[in-house]
């Protein structure tokens, strides 16, 4: 079910089991992300989407199976992680520039302060996301969409070539959601970034990504959007009757009354 030929994947989940404190969240998960992929991971809250991201980023060790990074690309693999924005406490009086600048701390090394090259990388990231005017604003004062843009800029400032976004549109209105999805698609297309994007809104993601990993209660399916987004597959995964319609050129998943 990996749909990526051996040798061409950046990261490959091989029969992976994930969980916390002995409690399994995901079992026997196998899929792979190739260079240049735009993958959406979709499922309800608590299905284990963020857990998959943590395993992909190497900060959660699988209980079973293995997360394999292709040896020849591993050296060039630079993850840029965009966390769920509500996990960051707004009590910190930090400007957007300061938060984006954190992306450069690891490169600067222990004790050393970031230098001019780091300042330049931060300036470029702010420019790429078009939030130069927000640079000196406090993170807490921003709207949800602006905060999300700041976090994407921070991910870019790491020098990332693999963007991993955890529910970036959660709780946003239609306009902001469209704006963020459009921005991520532009980064994928113009900057050549590999993107993995998590959401619990199937309709929101399906029309932007190339491939989908849909998970629910331990069941999952991974493949190109056309293949996964069929009534049969979705019915099997979600265990409810599902209709897939095309409206104005976009696929829409509906549960009939």
């Amino acid at each position, binding site marked *: 079910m990996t749909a990526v030929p051996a040798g061409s994947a950046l990261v490959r989940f091989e029969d992976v089991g994930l969980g916390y404190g002995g409690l399994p969240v995901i079992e026997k998960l196998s899929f792979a992300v190739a260079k240049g992929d735009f993958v959406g991971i979709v499922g309800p809250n608590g299905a284990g989407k963020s857990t998959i991201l943590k395993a992909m980023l190497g*900060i959660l060790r699988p209980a079973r199976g293995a997360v394999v990074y292709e040896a020849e690309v591993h050296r060039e693999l630079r993850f840029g*992680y965009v966390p769920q924005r509500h996990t960051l406490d707004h*009590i910190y009086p930090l400007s957007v520039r300061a938060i984006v600048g954190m992306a450069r701390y690891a490169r600067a090394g222990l004790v050393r302060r970031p230098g001019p090259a780091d300042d330049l990388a931060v300036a470029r990231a702010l420019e790429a996301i078009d939030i130069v005017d927000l640079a000196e604003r406090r993170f807490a004062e921003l709207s949800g969409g602006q905060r999300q843009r700041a976090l994407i800029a921070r991910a870019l400032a790491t020098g990332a070539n693999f963007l991993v976004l955890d529910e970036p549109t959660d709780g946003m209105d239609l306009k902001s959601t469209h704006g963020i999805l459009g921005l991520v698609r532009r980064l994928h297309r113009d900057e050549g970034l590999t993107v993995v994007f998590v959401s619990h809104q199937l309709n929101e993601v399906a029309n932007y990504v190339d491939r989908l990993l849909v998970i629910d209660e331990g069941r999952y399916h991974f493949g190109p959007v056309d293949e996964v987004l069929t009534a049969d597959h979705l019915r099997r995964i979600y265990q409810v009757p599902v209709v897939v319609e095309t409206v104005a050129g976009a696929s829409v998943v509906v549960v009939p009354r």
Partner: protein
Amino acid sequence: MLQYGFIRTALLGTTAIGVVCAYLGVYVVLRRIVFVGATMAQISSAGIALGILTGWSPNAWSVGLTFLAVLFFAHPSFGKRWPQDATLGVLFTVSGAAAVLLVAHTARGNEEVVHLVQGNLLAMTAAEARWLALAFAGILAVHLAFFKEFLYLSFDPTMAATQGYRAGRWNLAFYVLLGVGVALAIKAIGILLMFAFLVIPASLGLVLTRRLGGVFLIAMAAAAVAVYLGIGLSYRYDFPSAPMIIAVLGGLLGIAAAWRALRRPRTG
């Protein structure tokens, strides 16, 4: 009052403790672990009480017990299997009661309990004050050297972990430095003032400025000013020093909050 050696000693020791605790307090408030700080202080006082009872190094007992607490608080499972505030509540009350019970039948039982809570700044010896100043300067130096690491790991440990930082170890380092600071401070200045230094100056900084650097500077300056004014007022009007320093800190925070409220644009 500066003509008296014991007052100069108290000023040196208490300012060193106050300024560094105010710095650490900015993290305590931002990380929303104020009650962790209070519980740590209470556990530390139980250690001192154990030292008084056994007649063997209250500081060592205090640091030892606080270190055990630090290992517990920094453990990744802390607050996950059982509500964090309930655990802290249990530790706070039990260690507080233990501290009182342990010294209750010693020669100066009640007096010791009062000292644990209120401290006795003016009884600080010159050697003690120099040693405290050195120890707290060391804690501050480590924090300043690793400023960006402590800030990053406090604000977004997950993102930091994706960049190779060992979030668990940095968290432990943070708690160890805090624990050592709390344990050393308690015997000299008491639980009440120690806790006030952790919470009030940082809150004052957050009320007055929107820049993190400014918050640290205001917090440290407020602690130093409060120590000087508090000891001065207690000398002038014959009040206990530690509560007077806390009163000054509370007063400064009240003035700052009022000033901030007056400056806030009216709505509606």
